[in-house]
């Protein structure tokens, strides 16, 4: 919507903002130190709304929890927008000066009355109204989100429906107001910034832009494709069609992390060659024809990573990598040399300086400055540029700095792809727990006293109806497969909803259940919304997948 993809605001801004909408994020557990900044904001008097199907540990710090039905975020956001307009709380000057498409947006959200929204989302109309009035009436306000917004088949529309609210109220491009997607990995921001996207060169320069293409071809001394490549989900589809026969996987564990994972494993198995470069023997590495042992990026390598506030910071080698493990850049460089392209042996600083010469966003971040200033936030265009605490200040400039006004986006409610049915009457959503991380490859390595292991959270009323007791072993079925797990009766889970983490695939292969339907624009699968059925395990049924190891002491190779 605004160009470069990054959170608009710095962490310190949330300490000084007036209203926070924490939407589809359990930052208390998934981003605990960001949550410290948020807590400072609350201590300073900010009001927080938590929008989440679950009453999470983050929600418990909120002034109000809006427990919407899974996948109804657009209906809720549109109702908030409609109420802001109906109450005359929108910023008409900002809309006229800095945005376009307001009339279309206004017409599109007209149908999302508070009552209609209550019907769709399950959130009481008065709570939606209160959120709308507080957000629009605040001097400064931020919307924070994570995968609760983006792990849906309409992820991009979910995000745009939130951006619309910021455009409606002018809560963007100013200190304290903004739109903040919290990143899930230490360099998911940096990876995108560096061009690890199918349609972008480093610095968000488009591969289809002839000027950018010419610049990169000249710098790299070779011709480059002028069409976008494939993102992960499209790669799996191409594997299915037999168009991709070889895969080189670096630091990713798709054999555990993909939705409908049994199908994904079959596709990985059918490849002519699978090369995996990783720091541990993941399940994907175990399937590989060739494993390239890698050094740990943050403890055994030199380089940079970029955080959710666009801060580029140095990572440094503290210990030596074991055995034959080597730094990713050295492995990739050697591979290129073997493939007949002479990349020499550049140092991390050489690579960084090349990036600076090609990405204007990073041009001012010399290696020396990154060392001495402890990190810099892009855009940082020259050596005198202190970096940027927040983005999109141009929206408030008299001439918009020559840019086009920011567009509203018309988005409509669709709901999850997989509807509930008599056969699969419960909603399953997935997420993280505080002490664990992704498929458990790394966090399996330490003995956490608060690890509650794999299990499925069920509302007490649903448990009673299904005759389930706490800790009981059950089999959970989705249209794609079934897994055995334990019931955890959880009053913070609303009726009709179930929840599990995905940290223990060796014990409970949760992604056998999740829905691979994906967003055509982002490529993200709908991990957050599957339809399931829970059945008690009777003695007659064979016991499968019974965990034989304690999750707290299992090996790191999870």
């Amino acid at each position: 919507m605004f160009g470069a993809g990054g959170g608009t605001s710095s962490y310190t801004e949330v300490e000084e903002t007036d209203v926070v909408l924490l939407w589809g994020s359990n930052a208390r557990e998934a981003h605990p130190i960001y949550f410290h900044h948020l807590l400072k904001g609350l201590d300073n008097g900010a009001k927080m709304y938590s929008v989440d199907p679950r009453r999470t540990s983050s929600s418990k710090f909120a002034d109000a929890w809006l427990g919407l039905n899974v996948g109804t975020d657009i209906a809720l956001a549109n109702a908030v927008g409609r109420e802001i307009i109906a109450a005359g709380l929108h910023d008409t000057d900002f809309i006229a000066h800095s945005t376009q498409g307001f009339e279309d947006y206004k017409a599109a959200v007209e149908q999302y009355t508070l009552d209609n929204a209550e019907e769709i989302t399950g959130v009481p109309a008065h709570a939606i109204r209160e959120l709308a009035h507080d957000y629009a009436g605040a001097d400064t306000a931020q919307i924070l989100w994570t995968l609760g917004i983006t792990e849906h088949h309409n992820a991009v529309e979910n995000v745009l429906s939130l951006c619309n609210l910021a455009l409606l109220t002018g809560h963007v491009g100013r200190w304290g107001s903004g739109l903040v997607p919290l990143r899930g990995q230490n360099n998911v921001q940096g990876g995108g910034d560096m061009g690890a996207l199918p349609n972008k060169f480093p610095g968000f320069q488009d591969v289809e832009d002839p000027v950018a293409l010419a610049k990169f071809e000249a710098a790299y001394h070779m011709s480059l494709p002028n069409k976008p490549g494939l993102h992960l989900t499209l790669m799996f589809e191409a594997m299915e069609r037999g168009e991709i026969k070889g895969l080189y996987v670096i630091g990713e564990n798709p054999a555990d992390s993909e939705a409908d994972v049994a199908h994904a494993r079959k596709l990985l198995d059918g490849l002519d060659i699978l090369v995996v470069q990783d720091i541990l023997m993941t399940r994907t590495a175990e399937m590989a024809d060739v494993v390239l042992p890698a050094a740990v990026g943050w403890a055994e390598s030199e380089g940079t990573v970029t955080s959710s506030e666009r801060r580029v910071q140095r990572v440094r080698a503290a210990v030596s990598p074991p055995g034959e493990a080597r730094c990713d850049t050295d492995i990739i460089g050697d591979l290129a040399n073997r493939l007949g392209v002479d990349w020499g042996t550049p140092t991390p600083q050489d690579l960084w300086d090349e990036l600076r010469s090609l990405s204007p966003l990073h041009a001012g971040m010399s290696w020396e400055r990154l060392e001495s200033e402890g990190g810099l936030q892009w855009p940082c265009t020259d050596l005198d540029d202190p970096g940027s605490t927040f983005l999109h200040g141009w929206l408030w400039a008299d001439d918009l700095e020559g840019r086009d006004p920011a567009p509203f986006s018309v988005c409509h409610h669709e709901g999850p792809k997989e509807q509930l049915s008599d056969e699969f009457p419960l909603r399953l959503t997935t997420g993280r727990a505080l002490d664990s991380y992704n498929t458990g490859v790394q966090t399996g390595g330490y003995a956490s006293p608060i690890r509650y292991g794999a299990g499925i959270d069920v509302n007490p009323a649903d448990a009673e109806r299904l005759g389930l007791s706490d800790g009981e072993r059950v089999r959970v079925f989705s249209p794609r497969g079934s897994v055995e797990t334990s019931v955890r009766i959880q009053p913070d889970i609303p009726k009709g909803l179930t929840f599990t983490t995905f940290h223990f695939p060796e014990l409970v292969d949760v992604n056998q259940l999740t829905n691979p339907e994906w967003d055509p624009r982002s490529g993200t699968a709908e991990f957050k919304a599957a339809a399931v059925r829970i059945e008690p395990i009777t003695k007659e049924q064979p016991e499968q997948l019974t965990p034989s190891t304690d999750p707290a002491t299992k090996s790191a190779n999870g």
Partner: protein
Amino acid sequence: MTVTEVSVNLTINGQAVSVPEGTSIHKACESAGIETPTLCWAENLTPVNVCRVCVVEVEGSRALVPSCARAAEDEMVVQTDSPRVRHSRKMVLEFLGSSVDLSQATELAEWMRHYGADPDRYDQPDLVAERISEEPKIQDDLYIRDYDKCVLCYKCVEACGDDAQHTYAIAVSGRGFGARISTEFDTVLPDSACVYCGNCIGVCPTGAIQFKTEFDMRAAGEWRPDEQDVTTTVCSFCGVGCNLELHTQDDRIVKVTSPADHSVTHGHLCIKGRFGWQYVQPPTRK
């Protein structure tokens, strides 16, 4: 965003000092190049004003004042090295040292030498100062609590509560010599509200709350701070960008901290950042 830049002018040890309004005497001393000993004060915590080690003499004030908690005022005349201040600091350090094991409070050791504090002088043949004398509490694989080393400075309580974590798993229970930092109803730590962020360990000045890895290495005689290096890097467990200080010895990570002056963490981490590094080490990884 806006800071009122009104200056106050005071005199410290005869030296004219000018600092922004609201600055503590402790910070004013620091800006004048005067070091002040303290146990309960930290850069990333609100002063709780209990250890009395940082007291100074302020002209016109009947009692000595804690420099960490008292704001500098215009025309204040402060003495940090008067006989009264030296005597008070010495006595406080001696009293603490007479009942508490300060062997791992490394910063304090130098101050004790500086003020000639000798806690042992209270141990007479017929009159020995009372000590806590409890076995260290070891209730999980991450923390140990050794109350023999606790000076009740409240830093851990503050870090667990309002100043950082907002978990409120610990508080002071009991009174007088029986006062202890305790979980609710003294339940074992894994059953308490504790989320194992380790921020209490990060602020503990005496080693009373400690990483179990460090405790075990010390017990085995393998903890050698003089041979340790510290490398600053970035945590890998989410996208917040917390700086980690990796303390390494013999090419292995032995402890993780975070810099108190870092704008992202202010010295605080979560359980993953503090403890999640163990997979890096052999023999896990070969």
